[in-house]
Structure formats: C-alpha cells, structure tokens
C-alpha cells in the first residue's frame, strides 16, 4: 500500500489542471461537411442515375424541350419506324412515340414518387413506433406484415383496383398501402438498435416524452435507412404499376403510363414492330434501375462499412 500513500493528490490535480488547458487548446478535427454526399458522389452509378432521373423528370414535364409534337397529335399517316423526325417512330395512329412516352412518364413518375412519399411516411412512423414500444405494437405490426406477405402484391393490387377504380390516386394509395412494410421493417430494426444507446436513456432521464424521443431522436437518426428504403420502394412501385397496367388492370385510357403503353402495344411485341414495345419497356427498365442504384448508393454513402455490393 505504500505506493498509494506516497502519491500526493496535489500532484495529480496539478497535472490535471495543466492538462485541461491542453484539452481546450487541442485542435478539434475540422468539421467534415457532406461526408455522406461525397461518398455518394464517388459512386459513379448512383451519380449517373441521379443525373438521368433529373433529366427524365425535366423532360417528362417539359416535353417540348425535345419534341415538336403535342400529346395525341397525329404526326404521320402510318406507322413509321424510328427516323429523324420521329426519333422513336410512330404508332399505328401516327402518333410520335417519344412524345407519348414523355407524357406517359409524367403519370408513371407521379405515381411512383407519390407512393414513395406516402409509404415512406407511413412506414417510418410505423417502424419507429413499433421499434420503440417494442412489445405489443411491435408484434401487431409484424403480424400485419405477415398477412400482407401471404398474398402476392400484384394480386392485392389487381383486386383492389377492381374495386376502387382506375384513378391513379387510388393506385397511389393502394400501392402505398402494400409497400410501406419494407420501410417499416428497416426503420424498426434501426430503431431497435438505437433504442439501447445512451442518448435515449439520457432523454428518458430528462423526462422527455416518448413522442419527443421518437421524433427528435429516433427518426432523425434513421434518415439514412429511410432514404435508402424510399428509393427502393419507388423502384418497386414503378415495376408494380407497369405490370398491373400491362395485365390490363391498371391505368386505363385516356390516361397513359408506361405500363399502359406496354399494354397498348402488346399486339406488336413480337415481330417487326417490336420497337413500339421496346421504348416504354426500356424507359421503365432504366428508371427502375436508376432508383435501385440510388438506393444502394445511399446505403453505401451512409454506412461506409457496408461494402460496395
């Protein structure tokens, strides 16, 4: 014990107070701004996807930037293959495919993005609440999710559209209703891992309400997960819309979407008029691909540990 007694406490405090000055003068790391953004930008596929989508949205809403025609305008008297005036050719009524594609894109994108917003909202709220209040609400959410998984999404969507008509608003609501669970599960997992962090304990100790904790602590710390899943949900929504419309249960004339165009051109899908079918198909493919790339790019940007897939 001699060692202990010899140690003079004054010594310790003297050193300590000297050290306090060091601590404060010690340079703190320069604020690293936009870390995630930089990582995202370094991901080429994701960056290109963003550019592509921005261009697509601009073109869909201002088609006159690249086409001289208006919607449903008869530009030729017969079906034309792609040429210099009609870049993607014309359909059998002589309408310019590119123009139709862009106008149809408006509806497709509107549905997709609306679904993205609504289902992200429902999903992150439900996920955060389920994760935070773990027991009862959580198992309830899990059971509901199980139920929705039992019947394929396409079947639920087709059935519901039969009832609620072909308004795209109905479509948005129904697709949202069947696709929020993905977000909810991810956010729930995130919240479960956040919940045991000490800052949540600190907030509880400080008498903060559960609502405050959910909105101020849990959801802001789940942004990365929410962003990732919303991009993914949008991609899924586009595919679902196009499939159900292609089967003839989705968007109905006079409204058009890419899925609806595919339905219209179904008869030309094999043979020399394949180009008619190909344009909306490729548009769908690339848009879905872009959202998938963005989703993965966001995931990698927010979580540098998850290796590039």
């Amino acid at each position: 014990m001699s060692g202990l007694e010899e140690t003079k406490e004054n010594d310790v405090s003297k050193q300590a107070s000297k050290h306090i000055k060091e601590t404060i003068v010690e340079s703190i790391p320069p604020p690293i701004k936009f870390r995630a953004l930089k990582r995202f930008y370094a991901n080429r596929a994701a960056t290109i996807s963003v550019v592509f989508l921005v261009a697509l949205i601009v073109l869909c809403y201002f088609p006159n930037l690249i086409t001289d025609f208006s919607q449903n305008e008869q530009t030729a008297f017969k079906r034309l293959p792609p040429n210099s005036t009609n870049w993607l050719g014309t359909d059998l009524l002589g309408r310019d495919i590119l123009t139709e594609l862009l106008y149809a894109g408006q509806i497709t994108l509107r549905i997709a993005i609306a679904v993205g917003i609504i289902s992200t909202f429902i999903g992150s709220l439900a996920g955060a609440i389920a994760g935070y209040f773990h027991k009862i609400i959580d198992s309830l959410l899990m059971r509901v999710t199980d139920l929705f998984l039992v019947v394929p999404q396409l079947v639920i969507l087709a059935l519901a559209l039969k009832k609620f008509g072909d308004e795209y608003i109905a479509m948005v609501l129904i697709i949202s209703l069947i696709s929020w669970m993905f977000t909810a599960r991810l956010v729930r997992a995130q919240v479960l891992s956040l919940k045991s962090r000490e800052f949540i304990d600190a907030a509880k100790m400080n008498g903060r309400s559960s609502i405050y904790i959910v909105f101020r602590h849990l959801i802001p710390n789940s942004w990365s997960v929410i962003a990732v899943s919303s991009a993914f949900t949008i991609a899924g929504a586009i595919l679902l819309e196009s499939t159900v419309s292609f089967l003839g249960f989705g968007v109905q004339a006079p409204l058009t979407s890419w899925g609806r165009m595919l339905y219209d051109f179904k008869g030309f899908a094999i043979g020399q008029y394949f180009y008619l079918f190909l344009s909306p198909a490729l548009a769908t493919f690339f848009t879905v691909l872009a959202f998938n790339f963005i989703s993965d790019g966001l995931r990698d940007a927010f979580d540098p540990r998850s290796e590039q897939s």
Partner: protein
Amino acid sequence: MSGVNIEGVNSESLDSILRIDDLHKTFVTRSRGRKISTYALRGVSFSIKQGEAVGIVGESGCGKSTLARLIAGLETSTRGSMSFNNMPMRFTKALRKKISMVFQDPYASLNPRMSTASCVREPMHLLSKEELKVKLDKIYEEKPEEEWTTIPRGFLKRFFLKFESKRALAEKTYASRLLELVQLRPEWSVRYPHEFSGGQRQRIGIARALATSPDLLILDEPVSALDVSVQAGIISLLAKLQEENELAMLFISHDLRVVKHICDRVIVMYLGQIMEDASSELLFSRPRHPYTKALIASIPKAKLHERTKGYKAEKQENVHVGSEIPVRVLKGEIPSPTNPPQGCPFRTRCEKATDECLQKPPLAKMTDGRLIACHFPY
C-alpha cells in the same frame, strides 16, 4: 436487518439525500422458452449525504450500472425502497430535475444529429420560467459584456433564428454558459458531436447533466471509455464542480485510483451485494474485507510511483493496462450472477473461507465506523 445497518457512521441521520434500502433487481430473460434469472442486485442498502461523493467499485458484472440505472429511474427495482430527501422516490418532473446522470460512452450518449446546444438544452424543459430567469440573471451579473449567442451554421437555421422564442434564446444562452463551465468554448454550441474528441464530448455530457442544477449526480464510469491522457482533466473538472456546487455524487468506476482521488467514501460491491462501505482514507489505508484487499493489491504499484515522474511516462505505462486490472490478481473466475453462490458471495475465491462462510455474513458496523460483510474481517 438493513434498516439497522444504515445507522452506520457514514450515513447517520436524516440529512441523507439518497437512501436506499434492501434493493433487489432480478433480470428475467427468455431464451427460447426457458427463463433465466440474473440476480444483478441482491439487497443493497446505503445512503448518501448532501454534497458527499460516494464511489462504487467492483468487478465487471457486479451490478454497478444496474444500481445507477435504478436510481436514475431507467429501470424498476424488483424489491426494496429508495427515498430521496426523505421522500419515497417517484420519478416526477420535480425529481428528474434533482437527479442527473453522466454516461459511460461519450460516443453513444450524445445524439449525433443534435447540435451541442440542443444536447445541453435537452433537460431544460424541466426548468420553470422563474428558475431559468434566475440562472440568466446570474449569468449576466457575472459576465455582463459577454456575447452568448452564436450564429448557427446553415442558411435555414439562421433564417429561423428570427422566429425563436425568448425561452429558446434564454436556454441557448444558459447552454453556452454551461459549456463554459465545463471548460469548452461557448461558441462551439453550434457544432455537432462528431466534431469533438471523446473527452470534449464527455464534457458536453457533464454540461447536460448540470443543466438542471441537480442535487445528485450519477456517474457511470465517466472516464473509462476515454483516453488515459484525457481522464485526468475530466476527473479534476468533476472534483471542482462537486466542490463548487455541493453536489452529491455517485461515482461508479473500475479504477480504484480515480475513486480514491475523487470520493469521500467508497462502497465495494461483489455479485450484487455490498462487501465493504468505508471512508476513502480508511478503505485505502487499511482495507479489511478480503475482497477489498485483493482489489487494492491488484493496483500495479510501479505505475503509482511512475506517476510522480510526470505525465508522459504514466501514459505509456497505461497503454497496456486495461481497466480490468483487478481480475488478474484475484484467483478464479467471478461466479455467474445467474447462479450466485450461497452464503458469502466471495466464498469461492476467498483465501480465508471456512465452513462458516456458507452462512451469509451481515453488513456489520466496525468500531472504526466502516460497514463490512465478512465473518473474519481482520
């Protein structure tokens, strides 16, 4: 039984701020249908006086954190009672103001998405308007000319600054002052936690804990996650704050040297029970309980001599030594808290153990005033 023991020298009369009586906590976990009980606390009784710094030491898993979380109201006890200022504890807003806690991990205890000011302001909603005003008046009295508000970064935040309520501005000013109290720059209040080092973050945590001017501060291993070079600074800051504000502290640590430096009284815990409860001086100069002796003997002596030679040497020494030093000197493994031994919990590792130790020794008062739970305390 424990009611009697509490009448010890260290925790005499009614001026105790926190009194804990026969506290039990059993965690029941389920693992695929099977119930497993972990006896984290098994009858803990002690009390803390106004302005007293009490240390709690013990090996990992002995229930120190559980005790802290029970007192903080983050967990509910299985049995036993707690009273604060002689009132049974009920975690109302009024009580939450009086007790606050500094957490172990400075990286997990601050929300990474909240600015420093917001972190420090978090408990301030507990303060009434008048209380906040009193604090502000004091600040302006002390430093009338100081500029306390820092313009936030970010366009939107600057824009919304115009619409901020008086209350919010007052809280921000107070937050800046608190940062200054823990020796950080007030203008750093707009920064985010990731822009600080571990020690600086822990200071923010301390500032947050002090925001409501608590009477009791619980510190759960506040320095064990920090670089050794930073520990001393935090420790002496805490010592200073404790002295200035007459804070009662419950200081949990692995590190006996830290406890010795900062605490008036030390409680040694083992497997959810108190082994020895004595004033710092007594405990370190003349440890009685076999477990306490073993713990103290396991402090590497060389390092203590080294300390006088200067700070750098100490740092290098410490690089290899984790905070779990005691485990090495003590023989054998610590028994699992799911199945603690009958009688004296330390029986399985004690050199002096006899058949008598199969009976649980009571926490008895010695002539020198300490409390000790051992049949052979000499």
